[in-house]
């Protein structure tokens, strides 16, 4: 166990020395990885921010139930009765006069509503069902729409659903991209490590002759791969941070035009740690694949 730890420590310092010995090459590899990772990473952040934007808006799923202008008192009574059933959580009655007043004051349409000779708006119920699932909303809206005296029902959450569906596609896209760029990461790392193995041919052959196991020879290369991946992840963080600084002002200006205080949020710590862990893992994986192959080559050309 102590021997094992000693080997790990030895391999890690050897790996750090190897990276430090070729600072330009290490930096360029890290940068190539960084750019590759920043694409899915950036998209992920953009989607996270859009998602938050969607969440900020009043996307409370509500059903508006508009009554027929000619609905009888008995029909209205029956509708009110139906809305007291257990599948309805909350109801609010909006008489047409109140609706008109709200419209006039809220949206600077006072001059238009003032010009109306009679109120064109219907009486309405705003209903929130017990269960918020999409299916339930549709079912309740359908059931209420069939009641006599109801002119129309309207699901206010429709636009939010569409946005969510679009975001879901985006999220799938992020995973696809992330998968592709993970492969790119493995390839970049593998290529860098292959070059290193060939440069260290003599060391490998001599080490073998004096009793080095394959594992001993492999270990520093694997550490180099993992560290290189980690550096790539940090480079991606740098790229995204710069992009964030550049984008912040225009985004806040745009949000300001919509009267929103929306601003870009950086990723959470856990997300950063996860991404760095994954880049290190894929760097390691690339190194592993490459070292296994390259060592066999070195052996063959002995």
């Amino acid at each position: 166990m102590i021997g094992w730890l000693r080997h790990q420590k030895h391999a890690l310092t050897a790996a750090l020395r190897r990276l430090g010995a070729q600072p330009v090459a290490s930096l360029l590899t890290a940068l190539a990885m960084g750019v590759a990772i920043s694409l899915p990473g950036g998209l992920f952040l953009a989607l996270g921010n859009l998602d938050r934007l969607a969440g900020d808006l009043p996307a409370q799923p509500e059903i508006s139930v508009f009554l027929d202008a000619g609905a009888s008192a008995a029909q209205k009574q029956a509708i009110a009765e139906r809305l007291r059933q257990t599948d309805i959580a909350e109801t609010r009655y909006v008489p047409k006069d109140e609706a008109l007043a709200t419209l006039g004051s809220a949206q600077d349409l006072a001059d238009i509503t003032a010009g109306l000779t009679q109120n064109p708006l219907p009486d309405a119920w705003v209903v929130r069902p017990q269960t918020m699932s999409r299916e339930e909303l549709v079912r309740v809206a359908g059931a209420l729409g069939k009641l006599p005296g109801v002119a129309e029902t309207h699901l206010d959450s429709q636009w939010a659903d569409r946005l969510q569906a679009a975001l879901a596609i985006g999220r799938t896209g992020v995973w696809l991209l992330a998968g592709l760029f993970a492969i790119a990461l493995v390839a970049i790392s593998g290529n860098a490590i292959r070059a290193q193995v060939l440069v260290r041919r003599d060391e490998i052959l001599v080490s073998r002759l004096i009793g080095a196991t394959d594992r001993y020879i492999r270990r520093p290369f694997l550490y180099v791969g993992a560290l290189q991946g980690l550096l790539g992840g940090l480079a991606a963080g740098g790229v995204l941070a710069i992009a964030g600084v550049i984008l912040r002002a225009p985004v806040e200006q745009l949000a300001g035009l919509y009267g929103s205080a929306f601003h870009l949020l950086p990723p959470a710590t856990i997300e950063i740690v996860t991404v760095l862990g994954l880049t290190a893992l894929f760097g390691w994986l690339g190194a592993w694949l490459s070292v296994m192959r390259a060592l066999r080559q070195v052996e063959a050309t002995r």
Partner: protein
Amino acid sequence: MISFSQVTKRYPGGHEALSGVDLSIEKGELVFLTGHSGAGKSTLLKLVAAIERPTSGVVSVSGQNVGRLPQRAIPYLRRNIGLIFQDHKLLFDRNVIENVVLPLDIAGLDRRESLKRARAVIDKVGLLKREKANPISLSGGEQQRLCIARALVSRPALLLADEPTGNLDAGYAADIMAMFRDFHQVGTTLVIATHDDRAIAALGGRTLHLDHGKVQEGSA
């Protein structure tokens, strides 16, 4: 310690380096392998260290059948054998002491203890003043002594040397042979391939003469 039984080594291409060799070397012996180049001296040493595998026959070292050792066991065999090469096989990307400490790093010893042992061995071969030097700046004789230090640092029971004085002038060669005599006196088994007759005469010991892949007992 070492025994060969009907060992034949044929290289791809048909060249037969050893044919039907039988020999036995006891623990603590000093043995010279002689013969002109291409007679199979290097091949014999390589078979002992499992660098090559015999085409047929049994090579055994300390009771282990080396020719049939699984690949993953070979490193542990080699840790008990000190190898000294004619071309030294030093690493020029690190200094003298780092070259010597390499076998101990590989064996996973404590770093501080390793450096202490490496320094002691470097002192023994007379290179202590050059411990921070790059091996490329050393003379041929110094490089050979460095190679010997690296072979000794893990205190192997068996030393194999392939033409250790091949490229050296007489003075250096005598130095190195004197060193080998010291190791022999402390009980190390030594097998030295050489055609340096003066050295053989100076040290005495058993001689095995190789000719066209066959071994003959000789005398110094």
